[in-house]
């Protein structure tokens, strides 16, 4: 079984064929589930740790510091040490908390992130779900997470948590609109909601470049709304530590807190991955129309590397936002959405439709 860095279709196909031949259909399906599930779990855990480390180092560099330096070479093992610490911590529950919902909330948050990650195309053949409504599915499952946040805030029986959860609810419900509309702009342009089609459509140039101004506007709006969607600064009202100590997860400790923490970073990854896929061509290498030599040089770099380069690029920009800007106030966050992003988005869709109709694109 040859291993191809450029196309994983053969690998996944071979595994599938091998399983179907070796086991009964039911067993084969179950085993496939287990393998895919384990792969995603591993990926999420490791990538979450990596992102936490990256965030600390990036933030340190913005602030002229060094960041974690003690555990491992350049502090590489710091997040693992932190994770072990979180695992061993006592799980504390407020006496008057709603036991069932309090325990349920972190799982809802993290399950929502897991559901969303399923449709992300990492490389050709490395995607577990390839619907024809992929983008639609993604926007709908990613908004399930807010239920977890609301539950966490309400059930902990803490006023700070409740305020944080309410802020988060208002914020995510509003920004869901902007995320969807900016993606809708690109759907109009791409003509499909299926991730594989969208990526394939960017073979000759990323949508960010081929879609003229509307796609650039959509990209900026998506970045802003996506940052808000992940509850990160400058939109981190739900856990604004200078106002609400820790917002909705004030009362959580140990592994349950780790779930919230991990979910935040996985959401960051999802938003960046969607941005990379829809606007920056996913795993597709950088191609410019007729520059054959350049295009071939770009093809040498494996798609998986392309994908992660783009994802990290977007993640870096979102981190840059967080470590530069002050936090918005709750009414300003809604003003920004309803008075600025929404009208811009609506006009943007019109423009995009006009461009698509007149075929005024590359």
């Amino acid at each position, binding site marked *: 079984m040859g291993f191809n860095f450029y196309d994983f279709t053969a690998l996944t196909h071979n595994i599938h064929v091998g399983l179907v031949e070796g086991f009964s259909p039911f067993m084969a399906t179950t085993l496939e589930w287990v393998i895919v599930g384990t792969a995603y779990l591993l990926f999420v855990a490791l990538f979450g740790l990596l992102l936490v480390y990256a965030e600390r180092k990036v933030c340190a560099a913005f602030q002229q510091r060094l960041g974690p330096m003690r555990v491992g070479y350049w502090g590489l093992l710091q997040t693992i040490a932190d994770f072990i610490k979180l695992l061993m911590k006592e799980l504390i529950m407020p006496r008057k908390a709603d036991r069932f919902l309090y325990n349920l909330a972190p799982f809802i948050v993290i399950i929502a992130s897991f559901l969303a990650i399923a449709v992300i195309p990492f490389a050709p053949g490395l995607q577990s779900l390839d619907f024809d409504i992929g983008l639609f599915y993604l926007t709908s499952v990613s908004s399930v997470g807010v239920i977890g946040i609301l539950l966490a805030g309400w059930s902990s029986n803490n006023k700070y948590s409740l305020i944080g959860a309410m802020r988060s609810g208002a914020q995510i419900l509003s920004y869901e609109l902007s995320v969807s509309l900016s993606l809708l702009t690109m759907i109009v342009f791409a003509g499909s909601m299926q991730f594989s089609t969208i990526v394939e459509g960017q073979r000759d140039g990323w949508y960010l470049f081929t879609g003229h101004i509307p796609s650039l506007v959509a990209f900026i709006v998506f970045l802003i709304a996506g940052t808000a969607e992940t509850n990160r*600064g400058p939109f981190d009202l739900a856990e604004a530590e200078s*106002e609400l*100590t820790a917002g909705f997860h004030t009362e959580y400790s140990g592994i349950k807190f780790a779930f919230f923490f991990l979910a935040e970073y996985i959401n960051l990854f999802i938003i960046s991955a969607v941005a990379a896929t829809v606007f920056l061509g996913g795993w597709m290498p950088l191609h410019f129309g007729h520059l054959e030599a350049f295009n071939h040089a770009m093809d040498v770099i494996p798609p998986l590397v392309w994908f992660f380069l783009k994802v990290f690029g977007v993640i870096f920009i979102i981190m840059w936002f967080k*470590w530069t*800007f002050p936090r918005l106030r709750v*009414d300003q966050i809604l003003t920004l959405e309803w008075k600025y992003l929404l009208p811009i988005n609506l006009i943007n869709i019109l423009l995009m439709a006009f461009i698509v109709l007149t075929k005024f694109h590359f």
Partner: protein
Amino acid sequence: MSEIKEVMFNSDRLATDEYLVNMGPQHPSTHGVLRMLVKLEGEKVLNIQPHIGYIHSGIEKMCEAISYPQIIHLTDRMDYLSAHMNNEAVALCVENALQVEVPERVKYIRTIMDELARLASHQLWWCVMGMDLGALTTFFYGLRDREMILDIFEETCGARLTVNYNLPGGVMFDIHPNFQKRVKDFVTYFRTKLPEYDQLLSGNVIFRERTEGIGHLSLADAIAYGVTGPSGRASGFSNDLRKHQPYSAYPLVKFNEIIDHRCDTLARYEVRMKEMYESLSIIEQLIDNIPEGDYAVKMKSVIKLPEGEFYQRVETARGEFGVYIVSDGKKNPYRVKFRSPGFSNLFALNKMAKGHKIADLVAIMSTLDLVIPDIDR
């Protein structure tokens, strides 16, 4: 459908309620152990009741048992960010009571030190202001620059924060030979960094949205509540004692009293930012002209104040600081009272934050620049 409507508009079942939140004593944005009982309606602040005294250290009582030079090391610990000014207030009060004229050199050194301390305090305030508004990076940039001032303090005074540098009759040591060069280096360095502060925070659209028109404190209220310092000057209350009752070398320098009439959080922010420029210019005027001479006059080994009452006011980074000493002719004061700026400023918070959001409360508290040991004493 009609049922749903009934439920939705039935005011009994949809009653809103006020609720109380204890912000503090352990809260990230109260800058110490201050507890505020905040009455909220949703996010809106209805009433704030500050509860203080968590780190009351009884300095006024302690002062009654110790001698005058020893008082100074306690005033360090009240408003630790304005330690020099607090010390100077006590030193000046004792000197005035004894009618001692300090050498010119002492006056210059004290003034430069005051302004350096004011800069350090405003830098820390700036970082914390950014942090309270959620821009964490400002904290590190501010502390980075503050470090240079603290190094200057450490080299000359021997300590970074609780310097205890002033004594009745002069200062504890002469300035270090490197002092002038270091201060000049710092002034040139900081002049390049201050515009960066503006780019990062002052000009930022989010920051302006968060501060403009928030926390209005009218001139009449500022006077009635006794809000002094930059917070009062942002309401148009001209109260800079460096201008009105100049002490030390302040009569010799030219500087502007920064007054703003916009009365809001942004005005308080900008007054402090402009004051940093004024402080730099005061230092520049003095640093090259420090006259030769003694760094202290010889005082008696046991300082006894004549019977009577003495009051001295100085301008610290937070506002007007007063020392009121009642002496009965012994070597210990009969009664010492400190008028601390933070105490009066704190209680105007309720007036300013009423009707705003919780996030604004944090921003307003930040611009008041409270130091809790200063309030509790």
